[in-house]
C-alpha cells in the first residue's frame, strides 16, 4: 500500500507540473483526470473504496465538464496563451521546483499536525495545494484559474479525508468540485461569447 501511495505522489508531481506547463487544453484535461486517479489512491489510505471513489467520480465529471465546454468553443482561444505570465516554460518549471522544495521541507511538520496521516499522503496533498496556488498566481485565464482551484482543492481534500470521514462532507465536497467546474465552464462560455459579439 505504501509503495502504491508513493507511486501516486509521483503521478501527482507529473500531473501537477504538466498542468502548469501544458498549453494545449486537451493535455490539461488529461493531466487533471490523471491527477484525480492519484488522489483516489491517496484517499484510499484512509477511506474505504466506496467513499474514496466519490472523489474520483466527481473529479472525472468535473474534467469532462471542462473538456466538453472547451471543445465546444469555436476557435483557439488566444487569451489562453497570452494570459499566462511569465510565459517561459523554464520559469514555470523553476517555480514548480521551488514549490516541491518547500513541500519536502514542511511535510514532516504538517504530518505531525495532521495526526500522522502518512508521509506520502501529506506530501501528495501539499504538492497539489502548492501547485494549485502557483497556478492561480501565474495565470488569470478562466480555464487555468478553474484548474488551479480544482488542484488546490484536491490537495486539501486528500488531507481532510485523513481526519474527517463524514458522508455529508464527502457529498458536499463532490458537489463543490462539480460546482467549480460548472462555474468555470460558465465563465469560459461567457468570455468566449463576449469575444464573438465584439465588433471587428
Amino acid at each position: 500500500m505504501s509503495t502504491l501511495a508513493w507511486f501516486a505522489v509521483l503521478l501527482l508531481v507529473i500531473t501537477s507540473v504538466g498542468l502548469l506547463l501544458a498549453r494545449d487544453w486537451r493535455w490539461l484535461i488529461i493531466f487533471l483526470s490523471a491527477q484525480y486517479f492519484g488522489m483516489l489512491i491517496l484517499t484510499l489510505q484512509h477511506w474505504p473504496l466506496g467513499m474514496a471513489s466519490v472523489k474520483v467520480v466527481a473529479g472525472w465529471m468535473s474534467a469532462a465538464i471542462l473538456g466538453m465546454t472547451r471543445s465546444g468553443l469555436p476557435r483557439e482561444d488566444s487569451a489562453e496563451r497570452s494570459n499566462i505570465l511569465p510565459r517561459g516554460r523554464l520559469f514555470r518549471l523553476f517555480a514548480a521546483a521551488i514549490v516541491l522544495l518547500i513541500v519536502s521541507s514542511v511535510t514532516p511538520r504538517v504530518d505531525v499536525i495532521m495526526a500522522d496521516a502518512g508521509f506520502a499522503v501529506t506530501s501528495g496533498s501539499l504538492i497539489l495545494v502548492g501547485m494549485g496556488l502557483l497556478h492561480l498566481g501565474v495565470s488569470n485565464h478562466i480555464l487555468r484559474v478553474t484548474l488551479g482551484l480544482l488542484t488546490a482543492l484536491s490537495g486539501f481534500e486528500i488531507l481532510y479525508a485523513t481526519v474527517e470521514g463524514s458522508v455529508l462532507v464527502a457529498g458536499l465536497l463532490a458537489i463543490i468540485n462539480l460546482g467549480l467546474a460548472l462555474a468555470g465552464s460558465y465563465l469560459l462560455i461567457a468570455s468566449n461569447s463576449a469575444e464573438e459579439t465584439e465588433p471587428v
Partner: protein
Amino acid sequence: MNAPTIWIVAPAFAAILLFSIRNHRVLSILGGTISVLLAITAQFIPIGEALTLGANSFKIDDSLDVLGRVLQLRAAEGSLLAIIYGATALWFFGAEASGTARQIVPYGLLITALMVASIAVEPFLFAALFIELSILLAIPMLVSIDQAPGPGVVRFFIYQTLAMPFILLSGWLLTGVEASPGDISLAAQAAAMLGLGFAFLLAIFPLYNWIPLLMEESSPFIVGFLLWILPTVTIIFGAGFLDRYSWLRSSPQTTTALQFAGLLMIVTGGFWAATQRHLGRIMAYGSVAETGFALLALSLNSQVGIPILFLLLPARALGLAVWSLALTIFKNNAESMRFASVQGMLRNFPFAGSALVLASLSTGALPLLAGFPARLALWENLSRLSIGAALWMGLGIIGLLTGSFRSLAVLGMADGSRSWEVGEDWLQGIMLGLGVIGLFILGLFPQILQYFLSNLPAMFDRLGR
C-alpha cells in the same frame, strides 16, 4: 414538519421553480411574497412548541437528519431567520425596479436558503461548505452568459473558494486544541488558519480588492445583495466559533486581532471612499467599512458587542438595498458611474440621487439615519476601551462622510440651464421613497428593532450572556 424543511428545503425548491418564470414583475412579486411569508412565519410561529389551531395541534420540530448530520434551527434563531428573509424580500421587491429580477430572485432565494443551511448545520464548521456553494451560485448572478467576466469576478471566485479549506482545517485543529489546551503552538496554528479563512471570506484588508472591481463590472443591485448576505451570515458563523471555543473567546489576542482588523477595514474603507471618483467604488468601500464595524462590535465585551452586532444588521441591509438600487438607476441611465458621467444628474433623477446620498450618509453614521444608533453605541463602548481606537474609527467615519458629500456635490453640480425632472419610473420612485423613509424610521426610532433583536443573543450559548 420541521424547521429546516420550512426555511431551507422549501425556499430552495421554490427557487428552482422560479427559474422557469421569465416575467420580471411576476418574479419580483412571487420571490418577495415567498420571502415575506417565510419571515413572518419565522417571527411568529415558535419552533419546537406545540400550537393549537382549532381542533388540530401541530409542532415544528427543530432538526432534520441529513446523511448522518443534523440541520437544526432553534427557537432563538427565529428572529434571525425573520431578519434574513425580511431583508431578502426587500431586495426581491426592488428587483423589478432594478431590472435584475431574473438573476436575483431565483439565485438569491437559493443562496439565502443555503446561507440559512450554513447557520443550521451541525457540526457548525461545515457551514463553510454551504457558504462555498452559495458563492458558486453567485457566479451566474454576477456575469451574464454574453458578458466577458472581468477580473473582479475571477478574484471573487478565487478568494472566496480559498476560504473554505482554511476554515474546515481550522475547525479540525480547534478540536485538537480543546483536547490539549496547553499546546500553545497548536492553538497558534489553529488561530492562524481560522484568521486566514475569515480574511478571505469577509474580504478583510488587503483581500477586498475584488469588491470595487465587482461594483464596476456587474449590476450594483446584485453585488449589493451579495455584499449584504455573505458578510452577514459569515459574521454570525464567525461569532459561532467564539461562542464554541472558550479559549478563543477569552484570548486577548483574539480581541486585539478583531479590533485591529475592524479598524483597518473602517479606516482604509473610509480613506478610499473619500478619494474615489466612481459612485460604485464608493459604495464598495462603504460596504468594506460596514464589515469593519461588525468586526469591531465582535471585539467588544460580548454582553454589549453582540447586541450592537445585531443592531448593525438591519441598517446594513436597508442601507445597501437603497444605495444599490439608486446606483443601478444611475448605471442604466449614465455612460458610467464615474463622476464625470453622473455630474448634475440629481436634477434628472432626484429620487435616486437623494436615496444614494442618504444611504451613504447612513453608512457614515450621520445622525437621524439608520446607521447612526449602532455606530454611536459602538463608538461609545470602544472609547471606554481605547481612546486611540475610537479616534481611528472617527477618522474612518470622516472618510465615509467625505465620500458621501463628494457624491452629493458631483450629483448636484449642474449648470443653471438644466431643468428639474423626474427620470425614475413610478416603481423606482416608490421603492426608493420607501427605502429612504425606512432609513429615517430606523434612525429616529431604533427601539422598534428591539422587538426582533432582543432575543437574538440567545442563539449563542455563551456569547452575549
